[in-house]
């Protein structure tokens, strides 16, 4: 599946690894279950790695280890399940996570702008969502009312400067 990162097509450097598969000598992504089970061994490796969270798994479960991760993948099992919007926001604002937050699964073009706002910066997208389409999605609503993880100036801030 193509990857769009920070708005542009990008190569996926990470290998998704199943719970029973051997770890490759490359950046890998494991499930939360595996991470919690093999935490020490994983943290001892010198290779970047990431954790994949199901929509019902809060990043709070990662504890302070979150800072040791390079990537957190948030699953969207169906586009109506909006929990990952809160998880991304929590990662960026409460936990101060600065690595890659990647959306994976069933989400729609029309949700991309919301996702960017809560701090998701990488997207495993279907072919139909090209980088151009991605940019279009972000440009549809030029103004926002809420402060969010993207730091975009709110309408209230713009008013103050108008």
């Amino acid at each position, binding site marked *: 599946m193509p990857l769009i990162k920070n708005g542009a097509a990008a190569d996926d450097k990470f290998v998704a690894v199943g719970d029973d598969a051997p770890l490759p000598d490359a950046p890998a992504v494991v499930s939360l279950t595996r991470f919690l089970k093999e935490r020490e061994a994983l943290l001892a490796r010198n290779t970047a790695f990431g954790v994949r969270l199901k929509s019902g798994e*809060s990043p709070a479960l990662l504890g302070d280890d979150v800072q040791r991760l390079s990537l957190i993948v948030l699953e969207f099992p169906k*586009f*109506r*399940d*909006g*929990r990952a*919007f*809160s*998880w991304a*926001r929590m990662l960026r*604002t*409460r936990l101060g996570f600065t690595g890659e937050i990647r959306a994976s699964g069933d989400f*729609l073009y*029309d*949700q991309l*702008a*919301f*996702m960017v*706002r*809560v701090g998701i910066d990488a997207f495993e997208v279907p072919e139909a969502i090209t980088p151009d389409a991605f940019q279009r999605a972000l440009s*549809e*609503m*030029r*103004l*926002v*009312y*809420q*402060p*969010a993880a993207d730091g975009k100036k709110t*309408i*209230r801030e*713009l*008013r103050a400067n*108008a």
Partner: protein
Amino acid sequence: MYRYDEFDAAFVRDRVNQFRYQVERRLKGELNEDQFKPFRLMNGLYLQLHAYMLRIAVPYGTLSAKQLRMLAHIARKYDKGYGHFTTRQNLQFNWPKLADVPDILEELASVEMHAIQTSGNCIRNVTADHFAGAAADELEDPRPIAEIIRQWSSLHPEFSFLPRKFKIAVGGAAHDRAALKFHDMAVEIIKNDAGESGYRVLVGGGMGRTPYIAYTVGDFVAKPDLLAFLESVLRVYNEQGRRDNIYKARIKILASALGETEMRRQVMREFAELKASGTLAVPDAELKRIAAYFAPPAFEKLSDASPEFDAALKEQAFADWAKSNLAKHRAPGYAIATISLKPIGGVPGDCSHEQLDALADLLDSFGMAEIRVSHEQNLVLPHVRKKDLPAIFARLKELGLATPNAGLITDIIACPGLDYCDLANARSIPIAQQISERFADLGRQHDIGELKIKISGCINACGHHHAGHIGILGVDKKGVEYYQLQLGGSGAEDASIGEIMGPGFGEHDIVDAVERVVQTYLKLRTGSERFLDTYRRVGMEPFKNMAYLEQLHAAH
């Protein structure tokens, strides 16, 4: 009234274009119905039994003359000539074509209106006390914070895909006219012991198949902290609200499962963090800036007694209307007038394009800036000089809008029911019409006094039957419509959930049953007791005995 600045206007225009693109992709087949659904819902567009239905937001129920005229225009050009005011102070059009909806939204944007978040699993259009800024018992006008909430909740990036819909109401008076305790979340303006005003925040009320009365989560939230507090509640809900069962997905179920103590603990944890970050603080200057839009009109210095008004009272029709449809205004010489949308035998909440236009003219000719929509599906003129009332009444009479029944037994709330809605099990409107005709006699209505009948055509309770003094719920029994009675509900400050009486009544028996319940009340009441008071004193038994009496006779 709030007025859009360049930023609000650009926001709504962008939203129209965004929706136009969504409709284009839907019509081309690039979006399937399942994918299109959440986005059309976030723009108020439902697919109903016979057609699309477009629900237009009337934030906190306030409309200007210009906006009324636009609604009339849309009713004429794109619909069948009328609109329907809802229990959430919105307006629905029942027959728009999908391809026309972007144009309708564009026309609405030209008068600072939209349909954003009138449906979908998001924060819905915020409602408020329809007497806001006018009522004598008001602590503070709730509309400025309703507007602040509207802006904060519009396309909120984190809360646009909640487990289920989320309704917020705001009130600021001793008497609760906004059904605060039946909302997912409610904000009540209160004063603390030091005399400072702030907010009480209630969470977890709701109707539907499992009705709950909201409990307090924030005892006294300071003014700058309002949005941080609301966002904290939403966060707890978005993370933990149930997503496995649509009937258990509202915050009321989570609130009940967590309990008050745990809910408070979790909300306070989020709140501490959000407050510390300061990003959502509402500075006093911002509150003042928004409040300035809602400054009351410059009231004339009038004496409270008006000779014109007193003279008109000699006419019985005017006296009747004045008795039920006027409420006490805070300024001497002024009154609040309710325009009933419940003509005897009519469809509750319907308003024709001619009436909408004529109401706009009425506002203009009496120098009134706005009209309100009430959650009881009526309209309200918030600031009327008492001396103008006789002339206003005469105009309303010509328009068929002078029904003197506000708060009386024929002022019935009803959902659209099986005549329109694809969720309904039974028709609501014809039952409302029959009850209205049965109790048409005005002397009898006044004798009965305040009695709120609320009718829903299915368990989703859009007609608020749980909160009716007499609630009626339409059910389907093997393809036949039946109607259950519930007694003792209230949506006011003494909120309560009605109790189910027993087995339902058939379509031809329900009106008789209601009448027997009312007669029982008239026999049992003491002093100035309202129906609700009598019911609370004597309980279900005597009402039940009488309501089923005829059927018992038939059975023996």
